[in-house]
């Protein structure tokens, strides 16, 4: 599935899903298993694992997909507890909250944000080269799991 592969590539990852187990409902994509494949009817509302949606030709990943990518080799930043909380509140990340960087440190690249338990909290864009000494705002929040609460509001 090209949009998913392309998205994973932006995070420095490679993902290969069985195309025969990906189903589309309008603009949303889902990953199913063989049991669900036997049972599913075309008028479903939701099925299996939600992968993401396409809106205005742009792919918006689900948190399940981000988690799948996080299990692979990819650009990742691990943040401290305080930064974790601020990030899920929608805030950007300051350099002092970063514990570890894996993969790209280059300005403009995308990276997953993980907590100290290696759980994926969302993804971000690197705002300036993380190799440098520069402190302050380092990573811009693109999407975080606090979205589950914001959807309900």
């Amino acid at each position, binding site marked *: 599935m090209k949009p998913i592969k392309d998205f994973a590539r932006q995070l420095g990852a490679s993902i290969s899903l069985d195309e025969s187990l990906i189903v589309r409902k309008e603009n949303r994509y889902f990953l199913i298993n063989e*049991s669900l494949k036997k049972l599913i009817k075309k008028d479903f*509302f*939701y099925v*299996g694992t939600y992968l993401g949606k396409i809106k205005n030709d742009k792919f918006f990943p689900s948190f*399940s997909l981000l988690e799948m990518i996080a299990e692979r080799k990819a650009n990742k930043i691990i943040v401290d507890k305080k930064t974790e909380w601020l990030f899920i509140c929608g805030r950007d990340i300051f350099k002092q909250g970063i514990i570890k960087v894996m993969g790209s440190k280059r300005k403009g690249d995308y990276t997953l944000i993980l907590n100290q338990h290696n759980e994926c909290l969302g993804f971000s864009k690197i705002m300036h080269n993380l190799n440098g000494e520069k402190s302050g705002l380092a990573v811009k929040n693109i999407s975080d*799991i606090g979205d*589950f*609460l914001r959807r309900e509001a």
Partner: protein
Amino acid sequence: MSGKEFFVSRYEKLGWKYENVKPKQAIRINVINTKKADAIKRLQASEIEFEKIPFLENGYWICHSKFSVGATSEYLLGLYSIQEAAAQIPTTLFTELKDKTVLDACAAPGGKTVQLADLMHNTGAIIALDVKRQRLTALSNQLERCRVKNTIAYYMDARQASQLKMMFDRILLDVPCSGNFATDKDWFSRRTIKDVEKNAKLQREILTEAAEILKDDGEIVYSTCSLEPEENELNIEWVIKNLNLQVEKMNCYGEKAPTNIFRKQLDSSIENCRRMWPGQTQGFFVCKLKKRVDAL
């Protein structure tokens, strides 16, 4: 026939003296996503005070928290769900859920669907139905947050479930009901006996449909958060008389359901159902049904 006095006098006739209670907030650890001990450690580190619910394997009452337990990263990562204690009971009454085909007939907002997936270890398949599209969106969010992988959700009225042309091993009927005063402060001023009777009729229609699509060795768990016998014991009496189903014994928290309702004597097997008066939990009723042996 409405108002607090009317309903409270009915509860007294059923053997319960009214008291105004507010059930404690409860959570349930999603063991598909975390080890219970790890989740407990993390909650303790967050200074959330909680205590084990004695009649639930994975349920905990929240005693004190400085912040909303629905706004922690552990919650957003699906390590636990917020689910009232009594509402955690119905899905635990099924025997063996792994690899089964399960119908959650009135599924939204999805707390019990997630719990089913947890008990099934994401195996088999859950077919989750709801009649309100907006509520299906809430269900979908829960499924995504809690990393449920074995569910197909349809926008469908439970009374039309046979249109799926499937037979089910397990059917959860957590039916739409009149609710109870413990979770709705305006309950007494909003509800009339007519609402109760209307809901009871809808519930019987859902039970009828479920009986049609239950496998011979299948199980139905029926639950409401209503205290009104029309939606509970009297509906089960109707089931025994009109559908080929029988009430099963179960090991479950709660009082034996009364079998004499407003001087009407009911089938004695109805005492195997459980009634929970508001107190430790909200008001609740639960019953397990199987096909009658002589009807197979």
